[in-house]
């Protein structure tokens, strides 16, 4: 399918089905029930899943394949967001030109930063990207205020020109983002018994773009270009003595991943047309690193999984408070219940970042391949139990499938 072999086609198909049916899959609990708070099938959260998925897929093309650890990718996401909002201010509220511009601007910006940063490798590369990102962040906050609107963030106003669209709607409010008239915020609600499923135009646009990005990533992974990037990671010296110039390869990977970040930023602004400098801060770059590693750097599915995992639990954990905890442990004797609530309390609610930090450390220490590796190990264990013979071919196919 689309020039992929059967295994990759299957992978793409699974992701496509999951993404398109997400409003159902992420909404397993009937509305109003005790468990409804664990539903994730509402537009805002689903949009975040796929948009951060795109960001992580792109980051993985750089870090997962070449091993260059960038701590500055949030800068490209931020630049993408600013470009998109400017497009909404100046041209029209159609998301297509906005997204295209954000990809182009992020691409150019990453070309500039990548060209300089890639003259060094290892930790120096990480620090250079960090320095560039912090510089961009500081500039966005200070001198570039005319472009970025400083601390307030860039927003739409009623006197933006919007030469191809309208400055204000008939009733005098700011127009909303749309795809040739289809409003991004428009949501079709399907009520089936106790369930309430929401199908949001913005989510579906993001999901389709995410699938296209995922498809492109598969093609890159399986291409000679992807092979060279993996060669850069394992032995750059050998690659150079084999007649390959590693720098343009890494630069191309850097720019591609920067464009993915710009795409994510543009989409973010398309869903909610504002852009702030905090999107560029290095801790935001750290987040995409976390997603990629947690899911499994260098694997196809890992980054998407990591992005979804982190965004889902961020949402759920922040909702859990002591009342919820007491509800959970109510079956225990009072003393035990209180003790457990006290123990769990720091890790939920506002403590999500603590849990995330711990989880991340655990993954780096015990499971460097991330959730994907965890799944593989589990699969191996189960297989060994069911059929005791050591089936090496099957293990191999499992590991190549995940690549």
């Amino acid at each position, binding site marked *: 399918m689309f020039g992929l072999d059967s295994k990759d086609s299957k992978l793409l198909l699974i992701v496509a089905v999951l993404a398109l049916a997400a409003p159902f899959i992420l909404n397993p609990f009937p509305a109003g029930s005790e468990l409804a708070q664990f539903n994730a099938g509402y537009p805002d959260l689903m949009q975040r899943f796929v948009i951060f998925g795109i960001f992580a897929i792109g980051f993985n093309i750089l870090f997962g394949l070449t091993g260059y650890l960038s701590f500055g990718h949030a800068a490209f996401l931020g630049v993408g967001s600013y470009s998109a909002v400017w497009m909404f201010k100046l041209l029209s509220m159609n998301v297509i030109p906005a997204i295209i511009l954000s990809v182009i601007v992020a691409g150019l910006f990453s070309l500039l930063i990548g060209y300089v940063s890639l003259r060094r490798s290892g930790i120096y590369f990480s*620090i250079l990207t960090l320095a560039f990102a912090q*510089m961009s962040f500081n500039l966005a906050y200070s001198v570039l205020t005319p472009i970025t609107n400083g601390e307030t963030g860039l927003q739409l106003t009623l006197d933006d020109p919007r030469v191809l669209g309208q400055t204000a709607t008939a009733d005098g409010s700011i127009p909303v983002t749309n795809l040739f008239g289809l409003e991004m915020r428009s949501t079709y609600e399907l009520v089936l018994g106790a369930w309430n499923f929401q199908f949001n135009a913005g989510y579906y646009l993001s999901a389709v773009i995410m699938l296209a990005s995922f498809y492109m990533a598969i093609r890159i992974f399986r291409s000679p270009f992807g092979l060279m990037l993996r060669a850069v990671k394992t032995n750059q010296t050998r690659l150079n003595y084999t007649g390959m110039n590693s720098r343009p390869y890494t630069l191309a990977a850097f720019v591609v991943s920067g464009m993915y970040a710009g795409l994510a930023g543009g989409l973010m602004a398309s869903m909610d047309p504002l852009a702030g400098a905090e999107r560029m801060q290095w801790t935001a770059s750290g987040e995409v690193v976390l997603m990629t590693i947690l899911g499994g750097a260098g694997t196809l599915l890992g980054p998407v999984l990591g992005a979804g995992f982190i965004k889902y639990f961020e949402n759920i954990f922040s909702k859990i408070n002591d009342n919820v905890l007491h509800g959970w442990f109510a079956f225990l004797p009072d003393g035990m219940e209180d003790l457990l609530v006290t123990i769990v309390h720091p890790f939920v609610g506002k403590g999500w970042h603590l849990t995330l930090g711990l989880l991340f450390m655990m993954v*780096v*220490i015990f499971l460097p391949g991330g959730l994907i590796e965890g799944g593989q190990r589990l699969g191996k264990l189960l297989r060994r139990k069911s059929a005791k013979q050591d089936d090496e071919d099957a293990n191999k196919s499992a590991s190549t499938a995940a690549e």
Partner: protein
Amino acid sequence: MDAILLQTLNGLDKGSAYALIALGLTLIFGTLGVVNFAHGALFMIGAFCAVTLSRIFSWSYTVIDETKTDFLGNPLKVDVPYVQAWFGDEMGAAIIDWSVPLAIIFAIPIMIFIGYAMERGLIKHFYKRPHADQILVTFGLAIVLQEVVKYYFGANPIPTPAPDAFKGSFDFGAFLGMEPNAIIYPYWRMVYFMFAGIIIAGVFAFLQFTTFGMVVRAGMADRETVGLLGINIDRRFTIMFGIAAAVAGLAGVMYTPINSPNYHMGMDFLVLSFVVVVVGGMGSLPGAVLAGFMLGILESFASMNAIKSLIPGIDQIIIYLVAIVILLTRPRGLMGRKGVMED
């Protein structure tokens, strides 16, 4: 002239903090070869040692003062800190007032212990792993430490004043025979600068004049050879990690009156300190100190109005700009040894 002097002085206290953190980072990188992204968190923990101690000192019990009444006519309740009850009013008040300097004594064993535990419990397992893994795991640790502090102390900055004796400013201009009030410099910043100088001198003296320090320096230069001599270098390196943690912690303790500590101050300083280490030269201790002060002063100069109006925004990016130029033209930094991580 006085403007230059003023900016130089203003740069010194920030430069001191950069230099102290960068010194610890370099010690760790030079001895253990580990890139420690959690070092900023150690600085932050140091600052919160001071906060904790000042809170412990102000633990109070309530007494009812029958001689006075509050505005409702009831007998007045007075909170009396335990230290005042134990050491007498005057002594107790002085202890509370001097909580920040006293926190130094309190922080040293705690920081050494934290450093020791960190190295034995976590970092040790990462010597043989790639630098990227070291960055990642220490980054995770930094998040955890900062979130733990946030959990106990909240997200808002906690003002922790200097002792009364050091409040106010010193008229440096008048001291030098210039116009009064031309150069005013807070006393505590002077204390911080001198304190940093003493710590830096102490670390250098320790490495220079003790056998322990000599072995560590030899180990920094060539780990294998020293190992071959039958000297247990790893054990000494662990202790160095503790010392580096203590240096960062003390830098944090003394910094509290300058900037009220908050849970993310470590991350803020970390990025800059890494830049400092890179500019000074990975693995070079004098380089780290020199670059720390240099960048602190540069930053202070860049924030002068005359310069800002010439190049807008320069104060925000000067440090990064310098780092980028240095990394591209002289990858081993100002004083780095040839061949140490030049790629």
